[in-house]
């Protein structure tokens, strides 16, 4: 009989699950090895110590913490546009407004540049001509 099998029989005995055949085998072992009684007593003591004292428990309101997490997981994910002051309606309205304002603004800028270029003084750069700036050199700019 192996050590593990003896251990198995002791556990079956302590748990009250031992069969008559197993009990007979264990009794026979005990007659040949009286120290088995000590092992059985140690097994009983270890089990009683392990299950003694208050049962392990989580902090109070554990169930509430679990349910809060589940509700958080189940909540629909917020869209980026709905966060902060940018709500969905405002973002959509801005999208519709942009082309209406941007197109005339671009046309007006092009007209102004063309007008500036036609009235530009000779010797001015392209940048100065398009934006209607007076010709200016570095020395003048430093003294401004």
């Amino acid at each position, binding site marked *: 009989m192996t050590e593990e099998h003896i251990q198995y029989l002791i556990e079956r005995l302590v748990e009250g699950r031992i069969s008559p055949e197993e009990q007979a085998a264990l009794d026979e072992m005990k007659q040949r090895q009286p120290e088995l009684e000590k092992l059985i007593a140690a097994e009983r003591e270890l089990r009683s110590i*392990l299950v003694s004292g208050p049962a392990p*428990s989580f902090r109070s309101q554990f169930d509430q913490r679990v349910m809060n997490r589940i509700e958080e997981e189940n909540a629909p994910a917020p869209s980026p546009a709905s966060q902060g002051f940018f709500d969905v309606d405002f973002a959509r309205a801005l999208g519709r407004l942009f082309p209406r304002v941007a197109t005339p603004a671009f046309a007006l800028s092009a007209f102004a540049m063309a007008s500036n270029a036609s009235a530009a003084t000779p010797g001015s750069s392209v940048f100065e001509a398009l934006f209607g700036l007076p010709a200016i050199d570095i020395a003048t700019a430093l003294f401004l």
Partner: protein
Amino acid sequence: MISVQDMTDLSLISSAKDGNHDSFAELVRRYQGVVAATIIPMLGNGDEADEVGQEVMIKFYRNMGQFEGQATLKTYITRIAMNSARDALRRRKRSLKRFFAPKDNERDWQDEIPGTEDQGRDAENRQLVQFALGKLAPEIRAVVVLRLMEGFSIEEAADILDVPSGTILSRLSRGKAQMAKTITGATA
């Protein structure tokens, strides 16, 4: 109308699958002790154990559909809890390795020999056994917790840990021997 307290586990699961949160909350209340009995001896009692306990319940919530009633619900939830506890121990070991050189293979639970002043003999014994339990390697500790603390049979423990019954027996034997050695060393 029948209250959730009077419903069977299977009825609660069925109702929870249909989106009834009160039913699932009742399952959490019924089985939080089972989860605590697995997680706390494995990880020690603290914020991490509470967090892992919540994760166990959330995994159960997500996988309720897979529970078909072959095993008892206690065994099913204990399996999730034990796997989560072992994952947490692996994470803990990895994070400790970033800061400390590995030594004493598994010093992850309770490193100090408990003080025994001004305590009853039972409390002393309990602390010593818990100290010895914390010294065991996680795979051996898992067997001791399931067999000796939670009272699962060898076959149930083998099913939960997905190992052969012989492995449960050998780990249990090693676990007891190591605990006896630790307790003898601590009291010498």
